[in-house]
C-alpha cells in the first residue's frame, strides 16, 4: 500500500511488449511506408528508388498517359456500376431471404459461395463462360440466333462490363449477407407497428426500414468502395487488361510500372493517386461515423 508510485513507463509492461508488433506495423509499415511512397512519387526513380526530386513531373506524365486515363475511366465505370448494382442486388436478395422462406440457408449458401473463391478463379471461370467461341454466345447462336453477339471480353467497348459481371457474381453474396444481418437487426416490433398501421410491405421497406439501415448501407458502401479501388487480380486473370488496354485498372498500372516497366516513380505517383481516391471516400465516412463519438472504432 505504502509503496512509492511505480514509474509510468513500466506500468503494464507486458502489455506494451505484446503490442510491439502492432506498433511497428502501424508506424513503420503503414505510416512509414505510405509516407515513403508519397515522398518518392516526387522523384524520378526508375529501376531503383533514387532521391532525385523532380516536383510534379511524374504526376504530369501520369495524367498525360492514355493508359492511366483509360484505367481511371474503367475504375469509374466499374466502381459506379459495382456500387449501385451490388447494393441493389444485395438488398433485394436479402429482403427476399428475409420473408421467412423455406430453404433459406440453402439459398444463402448458394449465393455466398463465390465469395469463398479467389478473384483469380473468378476471372478464369468467367473468361471461359464469356469466351465467344465456346461460351454463351456460341450457345445462343446454336439455338438459331445466328447474329447474336455477346463477346464482352473481346470487344474493347464493353469489355469492362465483362469484368463487372464476374465481380458482381463474386461479391454480391457478401453484400446480401451484410444486408440480411442489417434486416435481422431491425426491431420486429417496427414491422408489427407498420402492419397495425396498415402500411404495405414495399412502403415499409422504402420509408422505414431502409432509412433505419442507413449505418449498414454506409458501412457496406465503404467496403465495396475500398474493394473496388484494389481491383487487380480479377482483371489480370480475366483479360490481362485487354483487349488492348480496354480493361486496365489503376492497381494494375501501379504493378506494371513498379515491377514490370521499371519506372518506379510512375508507380509511386499512380499509387499515391489511389491513396487519394480512397481517402476521399474514407475520411468523410470516418468523420461521420466516429466524429460524434469520443473513442475510435
Amino acid at each position, binding site marked *: 500500500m505504502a509503496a512509492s508510485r511505480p514509474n509510468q513507463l513500466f506500468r503494464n509492461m507486458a502489455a506494451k511488449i505484446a503490442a510491439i508488433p502492432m506498433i511497428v506495423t502501424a508506424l513503420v509499415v503503414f505510416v512509414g511506408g505510405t509516407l515513403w511512397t508519397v515522398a518518392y512519387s516526387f522523384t524520378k526513380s526508375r529501376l531503383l528508388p533514387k532521391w532525385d526530386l523532380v516536383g510534379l513531373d511524374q504526376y504530369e506524365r501520369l495524367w498525360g498517359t492514355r493508359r492511366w486515363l483509360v484505367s481511371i475511366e474503367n475504375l469509374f465505370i466499374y466502381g459506379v456500376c459495382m456500387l449501385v448494382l451490388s447494393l441493389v442486388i444485395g438488398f433485394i436478395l436479402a429482403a427476399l431471404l428475409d420473408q421467412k422462406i423455406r430453404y433459406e440457408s440453402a439459398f444463402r449458401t448458394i449465393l455466398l459461395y463465390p465469395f469463398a473463391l479467389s478473384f483469380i478463379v473468378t476471372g478464369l471461370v468467367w473468361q471461359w463462360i464469356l469466351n465467344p467461341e465456346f461460351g454463351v454466345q456460341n450457345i445462343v447462336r446454336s439455338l438459331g440466333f445466328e447474329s447474336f453477339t455477346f463477346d464482352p471480353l473481346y470487344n474493347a467497348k464493353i469489355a469492362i462490363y465483362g469484368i463487372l459481371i464476374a465481380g458482381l457474381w463474386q461479391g454480391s453474396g457478401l453484400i446480401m449477407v451484410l444486408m440480411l444481418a442489417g434486416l435481422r437487426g431491425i426491431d420486429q416490433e417496427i414491422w408489427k407497428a407498420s*402492419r*397495425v398501421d*396498415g402500411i404495405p410491405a414495399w412502403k415499409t421497406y422504402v420509408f422505414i426500414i431502409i432509412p433505419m439501415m442507413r449505418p449498414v448501407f454506409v458501412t457496406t458502401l465503404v467496403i465495396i468502395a475500398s474493394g473496388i479501388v484494389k481491383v487487380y487480380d480479377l482483371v489480370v486473370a480475366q483479360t490481362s487488361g485487354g483487349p488492348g488496354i480496354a480493361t486496365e485498372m489503376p492497381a494494375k498500372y501501379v504493378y506494371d510500372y513498379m515491377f514490370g516497366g521499371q519506372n518506379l516513380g510512375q508507380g509511386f505517383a499512380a499509387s499515391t493517386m489511389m491513396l487519394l481516391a480512397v481517402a476521399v471516400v474514407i475520411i468523410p465516412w470516418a468523420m461521420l461515423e466516429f466524429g460524434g463519438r469520443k473513442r475510435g472504432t
Partner: protein
Amino acid sequence: MRGEYAMEPSISIRELTLKFGALTVLKGLNLDVNPGEFVVLLGSSGCGKSTLLNCIAGLLDVSDGQIFINGRNVTWEEPSQRGIGMVFQSYALYPQMTVEGNLTFGLKNARVPKAEIADRVARAAKVLQIEPLLKRKPAALSGGQRQRVAIGRALVRDVDVFLFDEPLSNLDAKLRADLRVEIKQLHQRLENTMIYVTHDQTEAMTLADRIAIMKGGNVLQFDTPNEIYNRPASRYVAEFIGSPSMNFVEGTGDLSASPRFAGTHGDFALDGYAFAGRPAGGPAAFGIRPEHIVCGPEAQAKPIHLDTKVDLVEPLGSDTLAWVHAGDQPFWVRMDGQSTIRPGDRLPIGFDPARANLFDMQTEARI
C-alpha cells in the same frame, strides 16, 4: 367492474389454439372482454400472454378458433382492418420520422382527409401532452415521452380497442409508476377497451378491471384483482400474486359439517371459511398471506395462534417482513414498520381462517 351483462362483448375469443410446429402455445382459449373494460393478461414469461395479444392484433395467424372484435369476426382480417391500436414494449417508433410523422404515417397511407388527420393529431397530442414534441424525432425524446408518442399513434387511429404489449417494461421504476397512473387516467377518460400484457403484478393489480392469469397457454383465472387476491382459484395463482408469497401449511382437510384442518402443528376449525364448491376431505394445503398474520400480543385474539421464533428480519420502512418458524414450518409475516423485533426473538402469531385459502394437494384447485 364496468360491464353490463346484456352488452355484447367488445372482444370475444373462442377456442383459440395456436401451434408453432409441434409446440402448442395457446390451448383452446376462451375470453370475453366487456366494452370499456381494462383487462390485464398476467403471467410469467412463456405463458402465452403476448402471443394471445398478437393473435388478437392479427400479427399471428391462429391455428384454430375465432376472434371477434365488436361483434365482428376478425379471425382472418389484417391487423389494420380490425379496429385496434397497439402499443409496443420497444415503442417501435419510426426513428427517422418526427413525432408528427409517426402519428400521421398510417392515416396518410389510409388516405384519411388532411383536415381530419390534423384534428386527430391535435386531439391526441393534447390528451397526451406531447404538443411541444411534435416536430422532434424519437431519438430526441426520453423513454417516457417515446411511450407517450407510441400511445398517441394508437390514439389517432380512432379505434375502440387498445392493445398494450408490456409497454412499461423498458422504463425505470419511477417513470413506470408515473406512466401507469397516466394510462389509468387515459382509460378513465377514453373509456376504450384495453388489453394490457404484463408480468408485473403491481401493474396488473392497479390497472385492471379484470385480470386474466395465464399459464401454459391457458387462462387459470379471469377475475377482478380483489377476487384474485382474496380467493385465488388455484395454488399457482395464490403463489403468483402477492409479495412475499402466500405461506402454505400442508396437511389434511376434514371437510365435514364442522370443517377442520390438521397440520403438523395441531389442527383447527375452519370457522368462517368461504368454500369454493362441494367440500371433499383429503390432503390439502392451507394458505395464509403474510399480511393476514397478526403478530405479538394481539395474536392471542385470533382463532388460530402459534408460537414462533424469528429467523430473519427485513425492515422495509413502511412495514417489516420477518421470516419465522414454528417447529419446521416456516412463515413470512408482515408487520408494522416500527417493529423492533430481532432474530432469535419469540413471536406469537395468529390468523383467521376466514382470510385463508385451502387448496387440494392433487388438483391444486381452491377448495
